[in-house]
C-alpha cells in the first residue's frame, strides 16, 4: 500500500509543503541570516556580524519591554489559571444555569484582540476619569489594564479545559476518598489536583505563550504609552522594524532573541509540569 501512495507525493504533500516553505521555512532562515546584517529591504543586506545583537542589549526600550513582559506574564498566568480553575470547580458542582454561565464566560475569547483593546479602553478610561486620570497616565495603569483584559478574555477558554479535565476524573476515585473520610478540601488537594495535571500543563502552556507573545491587545489598549513605558516585547519589535529607519537589523536580532525566549519558556514549562502528571 505504501508504494501505491508514494507516487502521489505531488498531490498530497506538495501544496502544503510549498506554502509551508514559503510561509515559514524561507522567512525563518532568512530571518536568522538577516539578524547578522544591516539592511532596509531584504535585498540590500550587508553582513556585519554580532553588531545588531550588541545594539539590542544596549537598547533601553528593549530591556524595559523584556522586564515588563516578564512581570505581566507571571501575574497573568497565575491569575488566569487560579480564576479559571475556581470557576471550573464551581461549574462542575451541578448548580442551576451552569450551561448559561459557561457560555457567557467563554464568549470574550472569540472577540479579537484589537476590538477587545478598544472595548476595555473605553471602560477603564471611564473608571479612571473619576480620579482625573487616563490609562496612559502611567505604565502601572496600562499594566493592570492589560492584566484585567487578559483575564477577562482567557479565563473562559482555560475554564473549558479545566471543566473537561475535572469531568474526566473517574467517579469512583472521589467516592473512595469520601468513604476513607476525606473532606472536600482534602479531595481537592489529594485527588482532583493530581488528576487534572494534564489540563494544568496545557493551560499554563497556553497562558504563558499567549501572554508572552501578546501584541494586539497591547497595541489597542495603550499602544505603549506613555512614551513606550507600557510596551511589551512583541510591540517593541514591531516598532523597531517599522518605527525607526535603519534599525531593521536590530529588529530582526530582537525577533531572534524573542524566538529563543519563547522556545525556552515553552520547553522548560512542558518539562516541569509533565513530571508532575500521574498515570491514570
Amino acid at each position, binding site marked *: 500500500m505504501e508504494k501505491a*501512495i508514494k507516487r502521489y507525493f505531488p*498531490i498530497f504533500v506538495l501544496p*502544503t509543503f510549498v506554502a509551508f516553505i514559503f510561509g515559514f521555512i524561507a522567512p525563518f532562515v532568512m530571518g536568522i541570516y538577516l539578524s547578522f546584517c544591516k539592511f532596509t529591504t531584504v535585498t540590500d543586506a550587508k553582513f556585519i556580524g554580532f553588531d545588531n545583537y550588541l545594539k539590542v542589549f544596549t537598547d533601553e526600550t528593549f530591556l524595559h519591554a523584556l522586564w515588563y513582559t516578564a512581570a505581566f506574564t507571571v501575574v497573568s498566568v497565575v491569575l488566569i489559571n487560579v480564576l479559571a480553575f475556581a470557576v471550573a470547580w464551581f461549574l462542575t458542582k451541578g448548580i442551576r444555569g451552569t450551561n448559561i454561565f459557561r457560555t457567557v*464566560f467563554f464568549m470574550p475569547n472569540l472577540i479579537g484582540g484589537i476590538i477587545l483593546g478598544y472595548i476595555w479602553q*473605553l471602560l477603564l478610561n471611564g473608571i479612571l476619569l473619576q480620579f482625573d486620570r487616563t490609562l496612559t497616565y502611567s505604565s502601572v495603569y496600562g499594566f493592570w489594564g492589560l492584566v484585567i483584559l487578559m483575564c477577562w478574555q482567557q479565563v473562559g477558554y482555560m475554564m473549558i479545559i479545566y471543566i473537561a479535565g475535572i469531568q*474526566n476524573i473517574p467517579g*469512583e476515585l472521589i467516592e473512595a476518598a469520601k468513604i476513607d473520610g476525606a473532606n472536600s478540601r482534602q479531595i481537592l488537594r489529594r485527588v482532583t489536583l493530581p488528576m487534572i495535571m494534564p489540563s494544568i500543563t496545557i493551560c499554563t502552556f497556553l497562558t504563558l505563550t499567549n501572554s508572552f507573545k501578546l501584541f494586539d491587545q497591547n497595541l489597542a489598549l495603550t499602544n505603549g504609552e506613555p512614551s513606550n513605558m507600557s510596551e511589551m516585547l512583541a510591540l517593541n519589535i514591531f516598532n523597531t522594524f517599522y518605527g525607526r529607519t535603519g534599525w531593521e537589523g536590530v529588529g530582526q536580532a530582537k525577533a531572534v532573541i524573542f524566538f529563543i525566549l519563547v522556545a525556552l519558556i515553552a520547553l522548560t514549562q512542558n518539562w516541569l509540569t509533565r513530571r508532575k502528571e500521574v498515570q491514570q
Partner: protein
Amino acid sequence: MKKEKYSESSRKSKHGGILTVIFTLLSIAYMFPIFLVVINSFKKKAYISRRPFEIPTGKMFVELENYIKGIERTGFFEAFGVSLFVTVFSVLVIVICTSMCAWYITRVKNSVTKGIYYLCLFSMIVPFQMVMFTLSKLANMMHLGNPVGLIFVYLGFGAGLAVFMFCGFCKSIPLEIEEAAMMDGCNPLQTFFRIVLPIMKPTCITVAILQTMWIWNDYLLPYLVLDIKKYKTIPIAVQYLKGGYGSVDMGAMMGVLVLSIIPIIVFYLFCQKYIIEGVVAGAVKG
C-alpha cells in the same frame, strides 16, 4: 483513561441556590463591557469620553449616526466581505491540504516525511515576530498582497499546528480499513476522500474551529501582507479608525466595535457546541 463522568445530580451541592445567584451576578458583570460599548454607540461622540456610564437620553442620543459614520469611514461592509472570504477559504484550504499532507506523511515513512513532520512541530513554537519582516517582504515581492495571496500565506503559516493535529489522529486509524479500500480498487485519492476524510471529521472540525478563531481575529499578518489601501479585514478597519485620523472619533469607533462583535456572537450561538468541543479536543492534543 476511563470516561465515566460525575453524574451531575449526585453532586448537587447544598449551596446550589446561593452559587446560582452569585454566578448570575458575575455573568452580568462579565457582559458589562459589551453592554457599555452598545450603550455608548448611541451617544453623541462628545459625551462618550466624558460620560461613558450614562444612558444616552435627550441631546446625548444620536440614533444611528455613529454607525453610519463608522461604516462610511472604514468601509465596514467591504472589510467584512474580505474577512469572511479570507477566513472561509483559508480554513477550507488548510483543512483539505493539511489533512492530505498529514495522511501521506503518516503512511509513507521515509526521511523526507519525517523531516516535514518535525519541521511542522518546530514551527509551532516560533512566534510570528520572528518571520514577520521577511514574510511580509517576500509576500510583497511575489505580489501576494491580495485576499487570494493571503490565503496561501495562511496555509503556509498555519500548516504546522494543523498537520500536527491531523497526524495525531491518522496514527489511530486502523490500516485494515484503508487496505480493504485499496483492494477493492480505490486509488489513494479515492481512499483518502471516501474513507479517511470522513473518519477524520471530528479532527477536521477541531482544526477548522481553532483556525477560524485565529484567522478571523488576526490583525498583524493581514496588516503586513495585504495591500491595505485596497483591502482591509475587520481588525485592520478598526485599527485604521484610530490611526487614520488625528483624533479618534469615539462615536464611529463604538459603532464599528458593535458591528464587529455582532457576527461573532451570532456565529458563537449557532456553533457553540462545536466550538467548545473543538477547544477541548484541540487542547488535549496540543
